[in-house]
């Protein structure tokens, strides 16, 4: 498949880097200020695009919009997640669909905030929208629910934010306070300079909203989620939990049409108490009991793996 990659952050760059090893070509790349488009039937050399990005912080000499007009099969939308109208990611996806092109999202905004709108545009297009990378990084959560059949899935829950999980893990293991561990996470690059999206539960909530949209066929946005974060949680609450064989995890759940994210007590050595930046998705099914899928929930190559899995599905239209 010929890919146009919009967004040249950690995920976008990893897609550019890895596409060839999955048998796909990159024909256009855009970041927020520039783009580069391969002439005619040619493809871009990933190394030179990535080198220019790291040296000059641009990917090419064209305006960013030029990438959307390139001759591609799949638009990979990897711009930062935005709330509300989910722009510019939503607009990029719509532009691709209106040209009957496929869209693979790494950006959560369009499927969390405007799922129904996006599906309506998709309905009138020959292109399709896939978004495995938006939930749990490399973990195949969306596809698994799709395969099981949303009607046969009674609940989905899990640890969906690696930053929050890292902070809770360190606090419990070392008895350190929240501020201390957060600063450490920032030094390690595990937490952003502004960690509010992660520690206040917004990021996990967006992922749960996306899962709710998959489970119930749309109708959900962030406003429907009940969200509590872990910011300011005292270390003492974790030691009290530990005395009882429990620990605290930021758990997101979708069950009976209700989306909730908040700190929860879970058994200290239980399945959901994954440690560090690890994520886990737990799926309750009608006929097959409980499934647990855990793995790396974030990171460039990890998320790009999910993006390229979606591209792979689109390149096999019979089973996509």
């Amino acid at each position, binding site marked *: 498949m010929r890919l146009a990659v919009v967004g040249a952050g950690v995920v976008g760059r990893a897609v550019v880097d890895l596409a060839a090893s999955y048998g796909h070509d990159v024909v256009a790349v855009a970041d927020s200020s520039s783009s580069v488009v391969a002439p005619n039937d040619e493809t871009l050399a990933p190394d030179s695009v990535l080198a220019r990005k790291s040296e000059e912080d641009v990917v090419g000499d064209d305006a960013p919009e030029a990438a959307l007009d390139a001759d591609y099969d799949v638009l990979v939308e990897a711009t930062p997640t935005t709330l509300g109208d989910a722009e510019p990611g939503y607009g990029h996806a719509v532009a691709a669909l209106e040209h009957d092109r496929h869209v693979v999202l790494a950006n959560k905004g369009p499927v969390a905030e405007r799922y129904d709108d996006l599906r309506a545009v998709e309905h009138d297009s020959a292109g399709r929208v896939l978004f495995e990378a938006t939930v749990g990084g490399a973990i195949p959560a969306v596809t698994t629910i799709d395969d099981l059949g949303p009607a046969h899935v009674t609940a989905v829950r899990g640890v969906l934010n690696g930053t929050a999980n890292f902070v809770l893990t360190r606090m419990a293991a070392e008895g350190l306070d929240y501020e201390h561990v957060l600063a450490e996470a920032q030094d390690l690059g595990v937490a952003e300079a502004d960690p509010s999206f992660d520690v206040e539960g917004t990021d996990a909530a967006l992922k749960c909203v996306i899962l709710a949209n998959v489970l119930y066929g749309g109708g959900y946005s962030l406003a429907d989620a009940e969200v509590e974060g872990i910011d300011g*949680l*005292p270390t*003492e609450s974790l030691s009290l*939990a530990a005395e*009882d064989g429990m620990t605290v995890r930021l758990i997101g759940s979708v069950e009976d049409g209700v989306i909730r994210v908040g700190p929860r*007590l879970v058994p200290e050595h239980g399945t959901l108490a994954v440690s560090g930046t690890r994520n886990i998705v737990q799926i309750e099914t009608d006929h097959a009991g409980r499934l647990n899928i855990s793995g790396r929930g974030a990171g460039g190559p990890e998320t790009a793996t999910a993006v390229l899995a979606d591209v792979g599905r689109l390149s096999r239209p019979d089973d996509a």
Partner: protein
Amino acid sequence: MSEEPGSALDGPVSDTDRAYTVRLELVDQPGELLNALRPIAENGGNLLSVFHERGHLTPRGHIPVEVDLEATPERFERIVDALRENGVNVVRAGADRYGEQLTVVLVGHLVDTDLSDTLSQLERATSATVADFSLRLAREEGDSVTSARVRLDAEAGTGREVLDALREVAAEKELTVVEPLVEVSP
């Protein structure tokens, strides 16, 4: 403490006997425990075990005692009535009580917002009783944020209801509730 099986008034324990758990709250005075146990034998109950948590007080300052016994449903009702007539505070009584145990951690200005009132409100609003709690003060000086682990005994199937009520009480006092993920099924 236990009695010989079959010591009930009407001879051997009948097939219709059921196991019951009675949770009593006793005032810390000599003779209170005996006072509480006497009506059980007198009314044909078969005492199985008594769990007396000395040194542990309920939020109301009473000593919680948990009594397991066997009796027919009719006798059991008489026992509960007799206990109450004797002035013993029977908090919970029944074979199907305590189906669920919930552990939560509360975080916030627990002391300033009157923790015992918080827990009493919860007990009034639901079937739950506070079985145990443990309090931890923040290490940093000047910070009055406190954490408490609270174990609640609730009737089977009411876990979700209890957590909803707890959230409501906690919200009024701006407390954070770290809930158990899934309430334990009966």
